[in-house]
């Protein structure tokens, strides 16, 4: 019997698991996928917003501002990257400049006091490729960028070290409430029992809630955002995140420098019914180019190496819906976490403990909670001495598997073996970045496959691309049947 079960292993669920692992009690996180950090957490703009944008007085405003501040400590504790880019919201004409002034009022109301209104030329001095037609920009220096799914992985890894557990490929299909606890059931009829449930199921949160609650107060309609990724050769093309002025469709198409040197262009914003079908659409991709051209001049579209799309869990509630169920005891909603959910995530996790769980459960702090998680070595970024030392321990640091991102065999083995590791091709890509570069795995995929097969001692035809039963290799040709 678990004390708390979290449904959903995105950035929200995993950070809640980590916060809960500060306290006594048995904590379990389940996710229906074959890896953590798979849905919205894998497909977003990676921005830690300043918190200037949400409507004052909302949970979004409060938690975004708090979350932004919490990231500095979180990044230290979990050893995750933060790129302090700052952001410019750009205005081309008087009408847009008026919007900037409204945004300043909002920023003040949200206690975001670090901002400045600059004229176009000043902004262009700092960032020369910003579009010539831009007249004014609102500078928001506290805006930064992170690597979203690494947060989810690092948070879960740290939660594991502090006693929490997780299960993948566990899709909650039914929830039954008894007098004392809940019984969860998955796609194979496997049951789990738990005293309390925290629903962090992203675009599925309302459906999960309906499994126990008869009148769920919100419904979720996924809002798709599509992107281009530019290769890291583009590094330095822009230094700040560029936002257009917001419209009724949201924050609009942005240019976002990434922690590894790439630039993201996107996202678009279109509602759809499907909860997890995230295809790219020619019309969206066209729109990205059109909108992005208003932000910067001479965007090198020939450096596009990938497209992707993500779904925001937009709810009818018009704010994050973070509440204890009004009708089902010990069932907690952390729902409608669309943008700025990544920004707010560390604050959401605290809020869930302080405002939802503390009042209802006796939470006792562990005496030996260790907040620190060390990230695996990224060999090529180390100084010569550390490289030398590591090489002595393991010569496989010298075998470069992914030429584009300079990732060695030893690093890949490390990412397969460590807690929260993965033995799928895409799982390795998410963790080690092998296959994230210019050739998108053309060079290294077969080598990564070999390494997984050797480490896990399983046949190559049983190594999955990502989900269960998605092997890259269908059959061996040289064996006689």
């Amino acid at each position, binding site marked *: 019997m678990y004390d708390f079960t979290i449904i959903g292993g995105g950035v929200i669920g995993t950070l809640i698991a980590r916060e809960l692992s500060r306290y006594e009690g048995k904590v379990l996180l389940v996710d229906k996928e074959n890896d953590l950090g798979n849905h919205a957490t894998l497909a977003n703009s990676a921005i830690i917003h300043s918190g200037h944008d949400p409507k004052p007085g909302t949970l979004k405003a409060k938690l975004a501002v708090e979350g932004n501040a919490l990231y500095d400590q979180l990044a230290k504790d979990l050893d995750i990257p933060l790129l302090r880019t700052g952001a410019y919201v750009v205005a081309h004409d008087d009408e847009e400049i008026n919007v900037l002034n409204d945004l300043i009022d909002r920023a003040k109301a949200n206690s975001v006091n670090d901002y400045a209104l600059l004229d176009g030329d000043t902004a262009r001095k700092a960032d020369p490729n910003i579009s010539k037609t831009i007249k004014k920009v609102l500078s928001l220096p506290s805006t930064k960028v992170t690597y979203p799914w690494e947060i989810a992985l690092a948070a879960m890894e740290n939660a594991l070290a502090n006693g929490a557990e997780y299960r993948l490929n566990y899709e909650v299909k039914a929830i039954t409430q008894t007098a004392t606890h809940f019984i969860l059931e998955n796609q194979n009829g496997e049951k789990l029992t738990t005293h309390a449930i925290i629903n962090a199921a992203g675009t599925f949160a309302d459906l999960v809630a309906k499994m126990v609650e008869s009148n769920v107060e919100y419904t979720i309609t996924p809002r798709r955002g599509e992107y281009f990724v530019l290769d890291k050769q583009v590094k330095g093309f822009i230094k700040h995140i560029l936002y257009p002025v917001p419209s009724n469709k949201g924050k609009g198409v942005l240019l976002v420098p990434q922690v590894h040197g790439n630039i993201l262009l996107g996202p678009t914003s279109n509602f759809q019914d499907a909860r997890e079908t995230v295809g*790219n659409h020619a019309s969206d991709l066209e729109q990205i180019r059109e909108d992005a051209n208003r932000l910067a001049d001479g965007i090198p579209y020939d450096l596009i190496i990938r497209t992707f799309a993500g779904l925001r869990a937009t709810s009818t509630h018009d704010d994050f819906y973070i509440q204890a169920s009004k009708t089902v005891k010990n069932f907690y909603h952390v729902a409608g976490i669309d943008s700025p959910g990544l920004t707010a995530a560390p604050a959401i996790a605290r809020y869930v403990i302080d405002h939802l769980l503390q009042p209802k459960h006796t939470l006792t702090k562990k005496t030996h909670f260790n907040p620190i998680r060390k990230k695996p070595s990224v060999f090529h970024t180390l100084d010569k001495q550390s490289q030398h030392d590591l090489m002595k321990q393991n010569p496989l640091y010298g*075998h470069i598997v992914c030429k584009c991102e300079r990732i060695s065999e030893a690093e890949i083995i490390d990412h397969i073996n460590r807690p929260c590791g993965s033995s799928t091709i895409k799982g390795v890509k998410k963790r080690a970045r092998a296959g994230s570069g210019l050739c998108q795995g*053309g060079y290294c995929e077969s080598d990564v496959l070999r390494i997984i097969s050797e480490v896990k001692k399983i046949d190559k035809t049983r190594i999955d691309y990502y989900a269960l039963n998605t092997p890259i290799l269908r059959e061996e040709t040289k064996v006689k049947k």
Partner: protein
Amino acid sequence: MKDIVIIGGGAGGLAAALEAFDPSLDIMLVEREKHLGGILNQCIHNGFGLHVFDEELTGPEYAERFIQAFHDKKIPCLMETTILEIRKENDVFLIEASNKQDGLFTIKSKSIVLSSGCYERTRGQIQLPGERPKGIMPAGSAQRYLNIEGYLVGKDVFVLGSGDIGLIMARRMKLEGANVLGVAEIMPYSNGLTRNIVQCLDDYDIPLYLSHTVTDIVGKDCLESITISEVDADFKPIKGSEKQFDVDTLLLSVGLIPDTMVLESMPIALHPKTKGPTVDQTYQTSVEGLFVCGNALHVHDLVDYVTDESKRAGQFAKLFVQKPFKKPPSPIAIEANQNIHYVMPSSINPSVDLDTIHCAYRVTTKAEVGEVTLAQGDHIIKTQKVRFMAPAEMEHLTFTLNDLINHKDPITLTMEVIK
């Protein structure tokens, strides 16, 4: 300090090394893989060597002849060593290398011949719409899995793009028992060699859909189906022309791009058409002492041409270390005009005199007979009629410095379609 370091042990690197070799010089070849031969090792079909050996060899057989000669000369080579980056400080190249024995280390050299081959354009680069399941991969990757490792990646296959690797793989997968449902090409003509269309598609009844592209991809985890549509003259899909195919594999043969990743921190301009470096007739880039050849320079359809070109690059690298030639302040430009896609080299260094200057070029349109003219202003240097020209086939011509009227006006290459 090395005199010449050759990066890459494929057809290009081997030919360059063989020519650059001289007992008085300290040269070395560096190769990432366990075996020399490069991409040839996975090209087990035949059709290699018709120009160089006047024989039809398989890729590995072709490679073997050079590997043998390379070992006979006892040319030093570092295997299973990846070059990560090249820098130049005080006229010396610093080559960052990595392998299992020595970890990360630096090789110093006076000159470099880069012959690192090419990589395949991916789905992201052509921005295919639809979902992103497993089952979509570059044709060369599938070729590697099949021919080197002995695994079939799928059973029901469609190929997008009529590049040579795609055509070869359509046949290869069919021979291994896969169901190959067709090849779609967005252009109104094929991008592969004519002989490959005939021998790989026609002979196996695999349909070729010209002016078609993939407009949708379905499958959450595994590829389930693709939709192709006909495109109009602006490459926009035509509504109503959709055809759906249930497949587990979509192979992409949508272009190869010179792999010059190791030059990332060098001040080198990439050619807008070839996406490789720009060089003069000595295969020297804008950086003195840095030579590039083979698919790392521009993508070749025939290995024979890689061999010829790389031999010359090797000879020039040797000449460079023995009697350094300077880069001229203003080289003579060679421009691709009417119906010419690009010309390689893109400039001439007039201070290096030699008997023959070799140019490779591609046309932008098909011509049963085309008249190709090399001129300098109004002065016609050379004009020749060429039969069966197509964008997919690389053409060649030669001239000498003596043919020029001066050493400053740009040279132009044009093609007129006669028939």
